[in-house]
């Protein structure tokens, strides 16, 4: 039996800093009780090109965090640094309590990773591929078979597990990739573009699967995507990433409040309002205190759109109910529109003056 693993602190102390850049890393302190993924001033430069620029990231346990940005924004570079597969130019990262640059093995033992465009050995079956991964993680024998069967079941690949991987569709490879990342029983799952090149139904299945895993296993998930709308629904929090910088972090509504339109949009649907009654109805709606603008439906059957200041939406909604009742309008729906992540993303880029700017690292 090996001696108990020394704490990361003592392990770090044993090595003396050799280069200036290491010494600089030493100065940045990350509290011990930080979340499973923390970065402070993490940067990666390729020559003159800054792929990741002073990134400050915090992913909490039990949440799905979406790292969203265009291709080339630096998402994959960030992920590779978190796994110790690329060395940061400056700054520190702490993943499951370890510095990936110093203790990459400790990190990789506890972090499941689904790479962008995941691949498997063609000549082997799905199960054989997972067996190899298990072996590399020191899991073998009955223990491995049990784990492999469990994760295959979890991703719904049991039926095809014993066919050769070269017969798999892209979506099946992606699921097998998730199973592969889960074999080691990770505390953190890092998924790089998990929904790219998958049909819409496959995307929903994969996102449902992720949500289920988080609820079931309580692990933290960091996923990167450039398909903002797709992952919007599954992320607890998102970070908007552009040109190597995190330009906004929070839940989608929080980001909407930060970067969205000034006015909130409320959609109101009425039953039996003919198009000739639009003008009258609009006038009634405009009379509600707080409403700044009313847009009638563009096609029959669509709802009216009301713009109101963000801080007065509750008031407006209540008044709307009362007004509708007194005016004899039969209200069929009322809902506040949260702007799409695509909108927020565009606005955030403009707000930061980064519109049109692309990082160079894919």
């Amino acid at each position: 039996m090996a001696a108990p693993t020394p704490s990361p602190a003592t392990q770090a102390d044993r090595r003396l800093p050799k280069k200036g850049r290491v010494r600089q890393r030493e100065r940045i302190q990350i509290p011990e009780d930080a979340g499973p993924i923390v970065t402070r001033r993490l940067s990666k430069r390729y020559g003159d090109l800054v792929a990741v620029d002073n990134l400050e990231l915090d992913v909490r346990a039990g949440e799905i965090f979406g790292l969203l940005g265009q291709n080339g924004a630096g998402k994959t570079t960030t992920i590779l640094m978190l796994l110790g597969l690329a060395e940061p130019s400056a700054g520190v990262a702490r993943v499951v309590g370890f510095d990936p640059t110093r203790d990459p093995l400790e990190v990789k033992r506890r972090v499941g990773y689904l790479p962008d465009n995941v691949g498997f050995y063609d000549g082997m079956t799905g199960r054989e591929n997972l067996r190899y991964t298990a072996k590399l993680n020191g899991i073998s024998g009955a223990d491995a078979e049990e784990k492999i069967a469990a994760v295959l079941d979890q991703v719904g690949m049991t039926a095809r597990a014993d066919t050769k991987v070269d017969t798999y569709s892209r979506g099946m490879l992606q699921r097998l990739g998730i199973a592969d990342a889960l074999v080691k029983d990770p505390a953190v799952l890092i998924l790089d573009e998990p929904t790219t090149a998958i049909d819409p139904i496959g995307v929903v299945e994969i996102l449902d699967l992720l949500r289920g895993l988080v609820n079931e296993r309580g692990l933290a998930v960091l996923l990167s995507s450039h398909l903002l709308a797709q992952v919007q629904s599954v992320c607890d929090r998102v970070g908007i990433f552009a040109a190597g910088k995190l330009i906004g972090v929070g839940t989608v509504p929080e980001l909407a409040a930060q970067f969205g339109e000034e006015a909130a949009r409320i959609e109101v649907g009425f039953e039996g309002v003919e198009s000739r009654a639009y003008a009258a109805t609009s006038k009634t709606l405009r009379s509600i205190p707080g409403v700044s603008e009313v847009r009638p439906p563009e096609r029959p059957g669509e709802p009216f759109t009301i713009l109101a200041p963000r801080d007065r939406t509750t008031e407006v909604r209540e008044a709307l109910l009362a007004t509708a009742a007194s005016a004899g309008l039969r209200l069929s729906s009322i809902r506040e529109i949260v702007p799409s992540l695509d909108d927020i993303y565009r606005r955030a880029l403009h707000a930061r003056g980064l519109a049109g700017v692309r990082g160079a690292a894919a």
Partner: protein
Amino acid sequence: MTAETSVAPAPIAPVRDRSARDAVRLRPGWITIAGKELADHLLSIRLYVLLVVLGIAALIPLYFVGEDVRSAASSASGYPAIFLYLFAYAPQGVNFGPLSFTVMAFIAIAAPLLGVAFGFDAVNGERHQGTLPRLLSQPIHRDDVINGKFAGGLLAITIALVVVLALTTGVGMLRLGIIPHADEVIRLLLWLAVTVLYVGLWLAFGMLLSVVIRRAATSALVGFGVWLFVAMPFIGPLLVNLLGTFLASGATSQAEYAGTIQWVARLLPGQVYAEASAALLSPNLTSVSASEIYSAQAQQQIPTLLSFDQSLLLVLPQIVILFALMVACFALAYARFMRQEVRA
């Protein structure tokens, strides 16, 4: 796009106790990788094609030289190390121009194919399949990948060469009806070890190509091109010989002339390997230096036989050179691989 409510962040889950797994000492990653590589090679069509090629390369000269030995058997009875004649001597009356028609020489041509075939797609194949980032994200060191692949490849090569050697020895015993002496068996095993070293050099070269060249098809083409040039006696050795003749034109004696040509020929590792195998397989070869052999012939020295350890000592420099070349080639591949980006 609508969202009625945002999902509240889940409560922070307690970090699970992993001390049990940490206590388990992991098997070094390169052993696992070497095991997988070996299994891949042993199940590959490549190996069986190459076994057929090597088998044919060994058995054709073996057949002819076997005829010769049989016909001369009555007069050669009691002659030591007659079994090794099967490997080291060309049959009378068969002329292949620059190609010496011996088992030894044919193996020297065909065996490097094993190295190139097992090495050329070692790293770029993983890149192409998209398995490299996944592999590197497992708890292994990066050099475990290249070390394991080299170890697995070398083991597969050893197995293939043992099979071919066992086959030729078996056929040889059947044809001659004699059993090799212990001394001859040791010489054959030494020759096998040097051959593994030589093919290991080609494996390291193939892996270097697989690290440097992104496309497996290109690295295969380069690898087999170099093989054709270096290992086939028609192009590289012929050119080197020409260069040697040119440089030796000012030689004052026949011995110096032969010596210069040999030194230039040693630019190709095949020559170094050929000298080592010649000495190991022919006990009556008391020198591998062309100039010494020439002067010995001129002085008509009495032929003597060396024991296997004396032969080994004779070609130790050659063996060390082969080893050094293999290590250098592998070190280059290793260094390049360690510096490469994980992404393609």
